[in-house]
C-alpha cells in the first residue's frame, strides 16, 4: 500500500496521448496530449468551438475518441461495461447545465451514487451527503427538488453530488457559463475551496480571474489543438503565440 502510493505520486492522474476526434468532416481534437498530476488544477481556456469541452468529456468517455490513448492513473480508460462505470465513478464531472436528477430531491441526488454504486447504507450516505451540502452551502435545501433552487445552488449541489463519490479527480465543463452573473462567484468559491483542499481538477472555463488565481497551469486551445500552455501569470501576461494574444485581447476589458 505504502509503495503503491509512492508510485502513484509520479503517475499522472489523467493523461491524454495523441488524442484525435472527428465529427464528420470537422476535426474537433487534433493530436491532443496532456497530463494532469495529482493535486494539480488545470484550467482549459479558448474560444468557443475550440474543442475544450469535448476534450474534457473524453476523459470519462462521454465522448469517444478516434485514435490516441487516455490513461487514468496509468491505466487505459475502459471502453465499456462495469469497468467503465467504475472508472467514471472515480472521476467527478460537473456540467454546464448542472444536470441534477430532476425527479429527485437534492439529498437524493447526492446519495444516489454512494448508495447504488458504492453500496453504502442510507444512513451512511445521508450523513456524508449532509456534510457535503453543508460545505457547499445548500444544506438547508436538501429536501427540495432541483427546480426549486437557483442556478448557483443547483450547481453547488451538483458539485456535492460528484464529491459524494470521493473522486480521484474532478472535471468541470464550463460550470458557470449557464449562471446569472450574481451567482457565478458562489460556485467559484466552492471550486477555490476544493482546489485548496488538494483536489485534482480539470476546469474548462471562461472565468479568467479564476484561472489566474487558482490554476497551477493554463492550457489554451484553439481549433481542436493545444496551442499554448504554461503557468497562469506567464500565460496571461506574456502569451507566446499570436492566437493566444488575439484571444486574450478579444475578451479584455469593456
Amino acid at each position, binding site marked *: 500500500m505504502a509503495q503503491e502510493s509512492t508510485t502513484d505520486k509520479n503517475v499522472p492522474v489523467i493523461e491524454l496521448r495523441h488524442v484525435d476526434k472527428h465529427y464528420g468532416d470537422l476535426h474537433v481534437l487534433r493530436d491532443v496530449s496532456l497530463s494532469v498530476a495529482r493535486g494539480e488544477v488545470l484550467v482549459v481556456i479558448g474560444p468557443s468551438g475550440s474543442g475544450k469541452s469535448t476534450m474534457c468529456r473524453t476523459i470519462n468517455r462521454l465522448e469517444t475518441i478516434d485514435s490516441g490513448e487516455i490513461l487514468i492513473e496509468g491505466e487505459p480508460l475502459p471502453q465499456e461495461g*462495469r469497468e467503465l462505470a467504475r472508472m*467514471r465513478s472515480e472521476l467527478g464531472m460537473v456540467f454546464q447545465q448542472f*444536470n441534477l436528477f*430532476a*425527479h429527485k430531491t437534492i439529498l437524493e441526488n447526492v446519495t*444516489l451514487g454512494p448508495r*447504488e454504486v458504492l453500496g453504502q447504507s442510507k444512513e451512511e450516505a445521508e450523513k456524508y451527503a449532509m456534510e457535503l451540502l453543508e460545505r457547499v452551502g445548500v444544506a438547508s435545501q436538501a429536501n427540495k*427538488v432541483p*427546480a426549486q433552487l437557483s442556478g448557483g445552488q443547483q450547481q453547488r449541489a451538483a458539485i456535492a453530488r460528484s464529491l459524494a*463519490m470521493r473522486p480521484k479527480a474532478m472535471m468541470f465543463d464550463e460550470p458557470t457559463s449557464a449562471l446569472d452573473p450574481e451567482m457565478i462567484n458562489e460556485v467559484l468559491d466552492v471550486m477555490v475551496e476544493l482546489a485548496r483542499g488538494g483536489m485534482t481538477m480539470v476546469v474548462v472555463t471562461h472565468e479568467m480571474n479564476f484561472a489566474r488565481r487558482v490554476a497551477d497551469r493554463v492550457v489554451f486551445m484553439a481549433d481542436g489543438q493545444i496551442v499554448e500552455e504554461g503557468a497562469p501569470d506567464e500565460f496571461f501576461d506574456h502569451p507566446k503565440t499570436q492566437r493566444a494574444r488575439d484571444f486574450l485581447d478579444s475578451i479584455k476589458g469593456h
Partner: protein
Amino acid sequence: MSARTQSAPSVRAALYEAPGPRTKRLIAVGTVLSALVVAALVAAVVRQFYVTGQLAPRYWSFLLEWPTWRFLLQGFVGTVEVALTAGAIALVLGLALMLGRTSGPRPVSAACRLVTDFFRGVPSLLLIYFFFLVVPQYGIRMPAFWMLTLPVALAASGVLAEVFRAGVNAVPKGQVEAAYSIGLSRWKTMRLIVLPQAVRYVIPSLIAQLVVVVKDTTVAYVVSYPDLMQNARVLITNYDALLSMYLVVSVVYVLINFAINKASVYVAHRTGVKIIR
C-alpha cells in the same frame, strides 16, 4: 431554464394572444349564433323522434326497472374487467417492447421494432378475429374473456411502446450523462433516472390510451363476451328499443372516459409538479 407553468389556461394563453375589443365582439356574436344553431338542431332531432314515435313510453319504460340496470351493471363490470386487464398487460408489454427496442442488442431491437409496428398498425378487430377464429383451429381453447382481452392488449401495447419511447426521448441527455458520470450502469440509469421521468412525461398519453382500450372492448360482441355494449345489444333485441338504449349506453361510455380523463389530470398534476424545469 424554461419554466413550465401548471395552471390550466396557460396552453390557451400560449397559443392565442389576448383578444382585442373587435375580436371580443366577434367572439360574442359567434357564440350567440352557434348556440342558436345547436339549439335548432337539437329541437329538430327531438321533433323527428316525436314524429316517428320514438318518444313513446314503451321504448323508455324498461329503463325504470331494476333488472335492466342490473344487467347493464353486469356489462359495465365486464367492460371494466377487460379494460383494466388489457390495460395492465399492454403497459407491461409496451414497456418491455420499448426497452427491447431502445436498449437491447441489435437483433432484439429489430424484433421489438417489428412487433411494435405490427401491433400498432393492425386494427384490433382483426386481432380479435384472429384469436376468435384462427387460434382455436390450432387446438388452443380460451374463454371469451381472453379472446377479447389479449387482442385489445396487444393492439394497445404497440401504441404504448411508442408512447414510452417518446417519453424516454424527451428526457434530456444531460440526465443520462450525469447518471453515467457517477458510475451508474446503463440499466440502473434507465431504471432510476430515465424511466421515472419518462413515465411522468407521458402519463396523460398513457391514460388517453386507456380510453382507446375501453372503446376497443366494445367489439366484445364478436366473441359474445358480456360487456356493456353486448348486454345493451341484448336489451335492444328484448325491448326493441334501439334509440333509448344506445343513448343510455353512450352516456355511460362518455362518463367512463370522462372519469379516466379526470383521473389523468389529477395524476399528471400530482406527479408533474416534481419535474418542472
